[in-house]
């Protein structure tokens, strides 16, 4: 007899109560035996069985309303994957570029691809769109010809490991900001400026 967790699970994150921190509240166990399914034609499982095609799922702390991510059609998912693939290739070209002009051209290609990713932001979780925004802003504010090797590598890492990785939340965003900052980018450049009229 086999059982699977329902997909609708919550993790109780109680500050200061480690014993409850990872307590998983399954809404219910769904019995996936053939016997159960054959019991009645009108009986259906409350939740779908594990699907190897499904992307990895993250548990969301209870109390945080999940991001409003519309379900994607297969076509949208395929398109999203292709654009991410293109972004990965552009980032690789950026890393491989040996002179300032080649670097700038690869950078402009990447910015165009990031614009296409930006157009897909509503299909993805908030942190994913937030990171596309930051990456676009950071690269737009930089002289592409002057990108260092470390910066090109950092851009590639952010795209390959974070944007094209598992569904993003604060952890991936934090890592991405750290990668950008460590490479000498200023992730906050979009909202930075010296106060005027003071001294």
């Amino acid at each position, binding site marked *: 007899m086999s059982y699977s967790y329902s997909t609708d699970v919550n993790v109780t994150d109680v500050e200061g109560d480690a014993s409850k921190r990872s307590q998983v509240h399954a809404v219910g166990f769904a019995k996936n035996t053939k016997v159960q399914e054959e019991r009645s034609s009108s009986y259906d499982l409350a939740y779908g069985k594990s699907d190897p095609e499904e992307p990895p799922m993250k548990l969301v702390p209870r109390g945080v309303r999940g991001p409003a991510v519309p379900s994607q059609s297969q076509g949208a998912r395929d398109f999203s994957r292709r654009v991410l693939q293109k972004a990965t290739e552009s980032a690789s070209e950026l890393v491989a570029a040996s002179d300032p002009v080649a670097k700038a051209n690869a950078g402009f290609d990447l910015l165009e691809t990031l614009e296409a990713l930006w157009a897909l932001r509503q299909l993805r979780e908030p942190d994913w769109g937030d990171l596309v925004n930051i990456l676009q802003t950071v690269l737009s504010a930089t002289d592409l010809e002057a990108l260092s090797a470390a910066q090109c590598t950092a851009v590639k890492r952010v795209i390959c490991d974070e944007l094209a990785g598992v569904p993003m939340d604060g952890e991936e965003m934090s890592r991405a900001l750290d990668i950008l900052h460590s490479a000498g980018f200023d992730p906050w450049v979009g909202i*930075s400026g010296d106060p005027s009229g003071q001294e």
Partner: protein
Amino acid sequence: MTGKAVFLDTSIQIAQVIHGPETKRRISDRISNYDITVSSSVVRQEFKRRLLGEALYLLRQLNKHQSFARVMRHVTDILPPQNARKKQICLDILLTIHEGASDVELTERCRRYLRTLLTQGLNTFDAETGHILRGVGCAGLTCGVVEKSPYERYDMGSKLCSKAGSICGVVQFMRQNADALRVLLRHLQAMEGSEKTIEIQRAEQFLQNVLDDPESASKLEPCLKVGDLLIALESRGIPVFYTMNPKESKHFCRFLKQEMVVRPVNPELEDQVEPNYTDS
């Protein structure tokens, strides 16, 4: 750990995130002269209250007006001139970077930036600070910003020490440092009346009250009312105090025999180094 340490005041921590590139470069150059960077629990709390509080304010305005341009106008028209000038988060730069973007797009980009600042700001603070002193044990050391609903609702925690309950360690800190506080009170009392700013007068009154009754410390809301005093006390023992706001700090630095380094707001100006007073 050994080496020369520098204490980073709230103004420096905020500037490291949202001031212009030249200011950031100068701060980075200054810090590179030291082996250890230190900050404290009250600095972290002020960083959250001031910078992230402003991010939340702007995000709420964007949600209300649904227009980047209208919020820019609103901030200029509604906030008192002094306050508008001192506004820390600069939105103008988005206009420059995303030249030609529509108001709708700028609104969304701005909302996303502000959300990132709200959810990641304290991570950035922690990552960029070598050591955070527990000091007075401010509740701000452990309390973060809780996102209730992305782009909409955020719980920043209470600003009041009196509502922090047992997490706040200010009473215990005052008890443990009573002797030093007495000496500081005498130092402040001996200052010329003309030198005493309102905050210094408040600090004097606060010290008098807590020396009489240490239990009253949290009820007096010290983080809100005498933040500079608490930060100075937390920085005790660190030889260099780096700040953009020398007004009150200079008096505390003199007392604590610290070298004070002032970063002017104008990025073209060099840091001003005030000598320490060890020999005076």
